[in-house]
């Protein structure tokens, strides 16, 4: 258990350190910048297909990402509780 907390701390540090290390960085998502890079290599390229639907704003996009993470995390939480409960019951018997 202690080992897991320590490991989790490393993960959190790995995410936080860049924010403080690189004060001027924009930390943008990369999709838009990749479009630029392709434009630099092949200026004539036109995307030939559009997404059927795009989140109307950055806020709504982040809402959907949060929802994705929340659904996954919800299941993980359920799994952890269920398994530990089952385990304890088995030990009682």
């Amino acid at each position, binding site marked *: 258990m202690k080992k897991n907390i320590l490991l989790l701390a490393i993960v959190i540090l790995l995410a936080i350190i860049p924010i403080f290390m690189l004060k001027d960085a924009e930390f943008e998502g990369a999709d838009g910048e990749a479009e630029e890079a392709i434009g630099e290599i092949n200026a004539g390229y036109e995307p030939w297909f559009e997404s059927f639907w795009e989140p109307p704003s950055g806020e709504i996009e982040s809402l959907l990402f949060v929802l994705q*993470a929340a659904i996954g995390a919800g299941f993980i939480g359920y799994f952890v509780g269920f398994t530990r409960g089952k385990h304890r019951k088995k030990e009682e018997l």
Partner: protein
Amino acid sequence: MLKFVPKLGYFAAILLLLPERAYAMHIMEGYLPVGWAIFWWLLTIPFIILGLRSIKKTIEENPETKMILGLSGAFAFVLSALKIPSVTGSCSHPTGVGLGTVLFGPLAMSVIGSIVLLFQSLLLAHGGLTTLGANAFSMAVVGPFLVYFTYKAALKMGLSFSLAVFFAAFLGDLGTYVVTSLQLALAFPSEVGGFFASFSKFAGIFALTQIPLAISEGILTVIVMNFLKKYNFAELKSLRVLPRKEVAQ
């Protein structure tokens, strides 16, 4: 050996000269020429079909592992939604396919990884339908197979279970994005320097972005595995995940 030195120098120079740009996510909708889009779709489809069979077989043989299969999917779902800042000053997200691959094999994750990508391209306009074949090939085919072979090799080399899981998930994550840059470089070779110039441009940058994230993914996968080893030992045993010496304990 010496002839690689100039190439490495070139690679390092690119890393230094092009900071704060990263392409470390899925290929955007419409951004692969039609021919390449179809090519990657055709390569990916057989893995999805084999994957469906593999999942069916696993569930028939070990129905008690259904919950853990769900857990593997949920883990990939969460991790691929987390855009994490990285040392290059941009964000990217891990893939989360390492856990399920160690547990259920690479083919099962071809299906689950593709589902995650489909969800993201339909609801989040992240990635795309035309590029789904290519994105699934990198994240749901090459990634899991890298995980699988790394895991087996690491155990053979005598590494502990945790270390083997860590390296497998780490390399699977990193390899996914190396393949993405390969796909972009193939579709968009640079006028000067051709494929290799484009590849070092795409790969140099985002391999760097992805390294800390791949470490995080490795660690998170180990944490979940530690939990499973403690509470789901029987299931891990029937999936034949654990190295022999751990089962004997």
